[in-house]
């Protein structure tokens, strides 16, 4: 079965500093990988996804992530953090379900990002 590990529960960065959130996955086949963000009181919003091809993917709000198969990692990065980036971030791996079609996602436990002004 697939699984996702986000080793950092909380991260605090200063506004303007760079950010890297770690994600490691376990999946037997080529993974579909996603990063979502959840602001307080909101549902989850997709930041970016990796399906195939270029291992560096760009997302919304200036985020990017790099897929490294050899390390089973899909870390999220941003060169300069803004105060509005404070939120909870979830990494997820998609597994195809054979009945019908589509992915069911397995999520990590999340990383809470705090931004200091």
């Amino acid at each position, binding site marked *: 079965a697939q699984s996702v590990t*986000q080793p950092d*529960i909380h991260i605090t960065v200063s506004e303007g500093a760079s950010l890297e959130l770690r994600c490691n996955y376990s999946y037997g086949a080529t993974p*579909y990988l*996603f990063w*979502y963000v959840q602001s307080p*009181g*909101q*549902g*989850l*919003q*997709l930041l970016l*996804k990796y*399906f195939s091809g270029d291992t560096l993917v760009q997302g919304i709000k200036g985020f990017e992530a790099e897929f490294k198969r050899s390390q089973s990692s899909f870390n999220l990065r941003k060169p300069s953090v803004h105060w509005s980036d404070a939120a909870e971030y*979830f990494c*997820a791996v*998609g597994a*195809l*379900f054979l*009945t*019908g*079609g*589509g*992915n*069911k*996602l*397995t*999520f*990590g*436990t*999340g990383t809470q990002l705090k931004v200091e002004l």
Partner: protein
Amino acid sequence: DVKVTQSSRYLVKRTGEKVFLECVQDMDHENMFWYRQDPGLGLRLIYFSYDVKMKEKGDIPEGYSVSREKKERFSLILESASTNQTSMYLCASSPRTDYNSPLHFGNGTRLTVT
């Protein structure tokens, strides 16, 4: 834009009550999902459905059931609510044929069972 609407933002129910959580999506998506979100545990899949009247168990189905009578609506049912079902519940949808399509989430229903 895909809109996934969960009928209640907050619910307070008593132990033993039968509870219905409703979710509606407006994008004609075949797949719909129910997750629960707990601090330190992330999101865990309860049930999903890939077509009307079809359902499959997720990772934590115990104590829950679901109903999908219409394509746009997916209901989560707690037959006899218990305090350990106090949680945030998130509904999501996705199209069937797009394997790398992300899930589109509603804003969640925070359920408290007393």
